[in-house]
């Protein structure tokens, strides 16, 4: 079943088509959410929201766009909303605690070393530092970098998801990589130098 046929069947409220959509795209959606949230439970939760939205608003889907592009866009938006919600919750529950702590904020499954025993301790620590550095990037750079590195999307595909020009994506990725390295230097220099 190609995307066009799938969308037509979804618009006719075909449950079997919806199952097909979820099964085909669930990994992609969960991965996208996880790359922004760094937490598999949150990522699955947000991915469920993504498919609920797809189910409810399939009539709004424009035929000229690719289904995967639309799914990426919803996944990114839902993940960013989730992050904003988390930030507000953190602020409400006492932001001072976060600032006063020098320890890495280990609040995610992927950040938690015990969840992946097969990975070396060093790699896990690197992943925590990397995730924190990625989270510190400006939103547009973070989206472009995540879609490029974690989803292996081309510049053109990223530009379609983000609704910007290809040259803007190139610029965002250039700045994202540069800023990420600067943040990593900052993170490591206190321990090494």
């Amino acid at each position, binding site marked *: 079943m190609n995307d066009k046929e799938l969308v037509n069947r979804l618009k006719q409220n075909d449950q079997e088509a919806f*199952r097909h959509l*979820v*099964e085909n795209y*669930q*990994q992609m959606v*969960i*991965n996208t959410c*996880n*790359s922004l949230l*760094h937490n*598999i439970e949150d*990522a*699955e939760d947000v*991915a*469920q*929201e993504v*498919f*609920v939205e797809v*189910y*409810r608003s399939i009539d709004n889907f424009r035929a000229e766009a690719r289904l995967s592009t639309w799914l990426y866009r919803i996944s990114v938006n839902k993940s960013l909303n989730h992050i904003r919600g988390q930030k507000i919750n953190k602020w409400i529950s006492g932001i001072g605690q976060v600032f006063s702590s020098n320890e890495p904020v280990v609040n995610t499954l*992927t950040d938690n070393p015990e969840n992946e025993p097969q990975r070396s301790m060093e*790699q896990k620590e*690197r*992943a925590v*530092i*990397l995730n924190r*550095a*990625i989270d510190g990037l400006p939103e547009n750079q973070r989206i472009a*970098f995540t879609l490029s*590195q*974690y989803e*292996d999307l081309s510049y053109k595909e990223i530009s379609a998801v983000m609704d910007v020009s290809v040259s803007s994506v190139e610029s965002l990725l250039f700045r994202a*990589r*540069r800023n*990420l*390295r*600067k943040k*990593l*230097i900052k993170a*490591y*220099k206190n321990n*090494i*130098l």
Partner: protein
Amino acid sequence: MCLTNKQKEMNCRKCEKYIVDYLENRLTGNKRQSVEEHLASCIKCVRLVEEVEQTFKISGQDKVREVNPFFYTRVMQRIKSSAPEARPVSFSVRWAINTAVYTMIVIVGFSLGVFLGLPSKSLELSRENEQLQNISEQYYLNEHEHAYYAQDYIENILVTGEE
């Protein structure tokens, strides 16, 4: 040539400044050479460069490989259990609501200002009460004074026998 600690610190700082450009192959000529010379002699900066690059390289490797087998079931449960989200309010409706709210706030504020600015009836009544109280107090004092003079007069007659 042996570098002093201060000179070495400065070199490390400069090297740190150029590391990003060095890693992106954007350094040329003397700058690239001086960074390479520093890296050849400074183990700390070499470690820094290695750590940064190794950490940078793992980006994108952390992918979800297995999906929860009940994922579809959970999505369907969510669809069935949750009511459809309210339709987003259009800009014109939002503008109308905002205008109505702000107008109400202005009217209430104006009314409150007028209400507080004018002397109220209760204020007038309290002033009237105050006046009445003053009069009654005055009357009581006068009466008390009369009684005192009367008593004095009677005592005087009793003592002297003269009016």
